[in-house]
């Protein structure tokens, strides 16, 4: 019951945020966005025809009325149909979200898992060459552009100048083997770049925990290193780690893979969003922006609940 009340309160508190996002998206994408009048008119339109189309599109209405219409569509989850393909936005999302998740999951899991492991090793050997080597590697990962990493791995694995093992671009999930063949290059690029940031972040968190008094005391009492790391350090570092992971989720599901998907021609949400940006497809952009904001509110909520799970002292009040 306590949790339920908490969830409800948090969701209510998220409303201003989502409203703000809808306002920004309305002002930038619709109100000041591309004028659709002349796309719908034939050659040499008369002034009457122009006025008629403009009133159909709602351009003659005041700002507040148009924004309220926009909000009503969002609240009723009626995002309409894509302007370029006429497919319903909801069915486009249903088709593309699973692809995006399948593309993002391996890189996300490996990037965070390896990041924590490398950070633990670096923190354990703090100041020694192992630490310096890992942090040097992380600095390289941080400094290389994601785009360069993508092209580099593509040359290495997919071109005739490299190993020529994997497909150059495209997507196929029909069999597990095909999935692995297509997901490998994007995943390697993601992990390489993400490891740079993740390792540094997690190492800073772990070092902070490691230098606390209770850890020193435990070590003095002869607690074995593995147990020390697991029970006294990792467990206490969970809050920043959970925060980081939770807040990456909305970005991954909706737009994070935009570059990967448009580069490799993978039919996910990122590709759909990119195409919508290029063609000015407002219904799709609207849905993507609003859903990202809603996911952010949910991620915040899940993060708070996870804090409670990893640290019983946190209260959900």
């Amino acid at each position, binding site marked *: 019951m306590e949790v339920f009340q908490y969830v409800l309160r948090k969701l209510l508190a998220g409303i*201003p*945020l989502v409203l*703000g*996002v809808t306002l*920004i*998206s309305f*002002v*930038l*994408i619709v109100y*000041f*966005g*591309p004028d659709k009048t002349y796309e719908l008119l034939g050659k040499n339109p008369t002034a009457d025809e122009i006025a008629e189309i403009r009133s159909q599109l709602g351009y003659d209405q005041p700002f507040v009325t148009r924004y309220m219409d926009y909000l009503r569509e969002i609240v009723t989850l009626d995002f309409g149909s894509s302007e370029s393909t006429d497919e319903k936005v909801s069915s486009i999302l249903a088709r593309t979200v699973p692809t995006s998740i399948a593309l993002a999951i391996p890189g996300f899991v490996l990037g965070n898992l390896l990041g924590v492991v490398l950070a633990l090793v670096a923190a354990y050997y703090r100041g020694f060459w192992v630490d310096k080597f890992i942090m040097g590697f992380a*600095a*390289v990962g*941080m*400094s*290389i*552009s*994601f*785009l*360069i990493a993508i*092209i*580099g791995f593509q*040359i290495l694995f997919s*071109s*005739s*100048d490299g190993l020529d093992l994997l497909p*150059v671009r495209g997507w196929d999930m029909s069999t597990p083997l095909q999935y692995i063949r297509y997901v490998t290059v994007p995943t390697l690029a993601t992990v390489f770049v993400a490891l740079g940031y993740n390792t540094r972040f997690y190492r800073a968190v772990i070092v902070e925990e490691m230098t606390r008094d209770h850890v020193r005391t435990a070590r003095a009492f002869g607690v074995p290193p593995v147990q020390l790391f697991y029970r006294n350090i990792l467990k206490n570092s969970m809050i920043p780690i959970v925060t980081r992971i939770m807040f990456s989720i*909305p*970005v991954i599901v*909706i*737009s994070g893979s*935009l*570059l990967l998907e*448009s580069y490799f021609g993978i039919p996910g949400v990122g590709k759909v*969003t*990119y195409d919508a*940006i*290029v063609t*000015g497809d407002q219904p799709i*952009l609207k849905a*993507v*922006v609003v859903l*990202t*904001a809603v996911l*952010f509110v949910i991620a915040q909520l899940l993060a708070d609940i996870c804090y409670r799970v990893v640290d019983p002292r946190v209260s959900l009040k």
Partner: protein
Amino acid sequence: MSARAEVAVSVGAHGDSLWSKALRKFRRDRVGMWSLAVVLAYAVVALGVVLGLWAGDWADVSGPKWAPVSGEYWFGTNIIGQDIFARSLYSTRTAFEVGLVVALGATALGAVLGSTAGFFSGSWIDEVIIWLMGVLDSVPFILLVAAISYTLQGSPWAMHIAMIATFWIGTARLIRGEVIKLKSLEYVEAAHAIGVSRFMIIFRHILPNTFHILLVQATLSFVAAIKSEVILSFLGLGVKDGMSWGLMISESTFEVLAGFFNNFIAASVLMFGLVMAFNMFSDALQDALDPRTVK
């Protein structure tokens, strides 16, 4: 009272302020000094382009298609015979332009809004600024760039404005926290007591004491701006007129498949060098300004 004043004077006499200590620490940091030298070398290249000393011919179609590295074309030529070396130099200028504009804009905005929110923490002003940060944080970055680009009708500054509109948030959060700490200190109370206006207290008395945070945040924004420029230009949302590393890499994706790597390697290596050096400079700066590290 007099004893304390004496201590203050003697500390001042040794020049042991945060800044002089930081400078001493930084000078001893070999990695930091080397990375600063690399960044300055890039800056000289960029300045030379601005002054018209070199790379003025970056757009000329002068050579044969895909010329190899030679005395005339140091990095070879691209698919239509433009000199890759000149284009790389010109792109350095673009990187500095984007980096400096965004770093200054985002840091200034973050400083003003962050300190205002922190000073008025708990009031509606704070709530509004926090709400604004949350909202801008929740809009996907690339979509924001595209939307601002629509609104400004394809202006080449759309990219800069979108980056400033999102990069200030991190700075503002840090400054807000720091200002909340600082505003309860005695010297702020004293300023209140002698009737200094709130505007002057925030911007004349509190904000200068967060300058070490702003400096580090500016270097981080600079790096983030250069990296975002490459991706946005590749997606066709970034640099519109001119040349940049992002546009060079974008050009090179066709060439790479045909086995010609000069464009890709030139842009990647130059960009990597600058970003790496700037990252290490930023790290060294953070260490030097951190009062907890002793060197």
